[in-house]
């Protein structure tokens, strides 16, 4: 399978196999009008199998979303066909308007303009809790 190299854009690499589509959705990549490639189940020496997303445009991506979905992913910034920056992504301490509280008793359920903020409360087990009601994110 041949996917062209990109000149100016972003390669999200080392995505755990199977999480590529979830990242695509949460990053809102379907809204872009540039070329976006999702490559699934690529052979990886490090992971066995991995997914890769290539975005053929130098756009800002929400690194918190990436860190929440799949910490350990690397984000490569490409300019002029060259790798200019490689970032390792860790779990963010807080997530804002990325995931939404489903607790019907939470204040966010009735005040539509409140930001949905989740805090990382257990790094080892990757547990995020709603800032307001402390309900665990699913």
């Amino acid at each position, binding site marked *: 399978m041949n996917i062209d190299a990109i000149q100016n854009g972003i390669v999200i690499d080392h995505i755990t196999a199977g999480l590529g589509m979830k990242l695509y959705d949460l990053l809102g990549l379907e809204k872009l009008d540039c070329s976006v490639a999702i490559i699934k189940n690529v052979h990886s020496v490090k992971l066995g199998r991995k997914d890769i997303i290539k975005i053929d445009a130098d756009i800002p991506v929400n690194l918190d979303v990436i860190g929440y979905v799949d910490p350990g992913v690397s984000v490569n910034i490409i300019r002029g066909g060259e790798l200019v920056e490689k970032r390792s992504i860790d779990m963010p301490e807080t997530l804002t308007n990325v995931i939404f509280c489903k*607790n019907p*008793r*939470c*204040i*966010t*359920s*009735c*005040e539509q*303009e*409140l930001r949905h903020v989740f805090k990382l*409360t*257990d790094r080892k087990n990757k547990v995020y809790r*709603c*800032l*307001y*009601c*402390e309900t*665990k994110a699913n």
Partner: protein
Amino acid sequence: MRHLIDILDFSPEELQELMDTANDIIADPAKYSEVCRGKKLATLFFEPSTRTRLSFEAAMIELGGSVLGFSEAQSSSAAKGESVADTAKVISCYADIIAMRHPKEGAPLVAAANASVPVINAGDGGHNHPTQTLADLLTIYREKGRLDHMTIGLCGDLKFGRTVHSLITAMSRYEGLQFVLISPEELKLPSYVKKEVLRAKGIPYAQTTDLEGAMPELDILYMTRVQRERFFNEEDYLRLKDSYILTPDKLKNAKSDLSILHPLPRVNEISVAIDDDPRACYFKQVLYGKYMRMALILKLLKEAGSL
């Protein structure tokens, strides 16, 4: 700006400071009777709670201050659709400190983020009720002379009982404690409290459905009411509401210095025949709650530069 939204907002040293102030107020109330003259407490109660509201109001009045507010959402601007954030901004223009009760979890945190005066969480749904925990802590401290090295039995609704969760969280910072969790299967302590508080801190605990069997080892027995308002299903409430009823007979094997606490109101889970037993502390607990609220108002007003 300091607020009290969660009991963990205060360190054990700050809780001790509050208890010391409360004890000083109890010893010499006249010394504090004018300290808040000219200051106003707004009690914003978006759901009814006569007991907590009156406790806050009595606390402020005994400090020489004044109170204003409302006792149900229908008589507030929330009925017109005003947000909690806007309410907090508006009330900050009228009062020096706010006590808020709200049926939605996290509402006082939203208020605190938007108010320019201290906000006290007076209960947010089934989530937190830190000033009840302040009352519980002072009661235990005055009854036992310490907050460490004891066995605490928690009985009743441990699932929805926010006072239980807050008390466990607050007490988990003291040494030598063990908990006995007494509840029906359906109302057991949520697993996240066991995992993230008890197991994470290596605090020993046992779970049982047998109140009488657990009784001999208890230094504190914290009874709770099965709360109708926390159930979506009336049938479940009716089935579980009479799970535990403490009667004199059940205290036969209890320690002579057991302290029986209850956040009140009670329905029938403690027989009135217990009320005259010297081990019954739940009405003293109400009084101590007022003193701790006085100490809290003083601390927050001082830290805000209002006193």
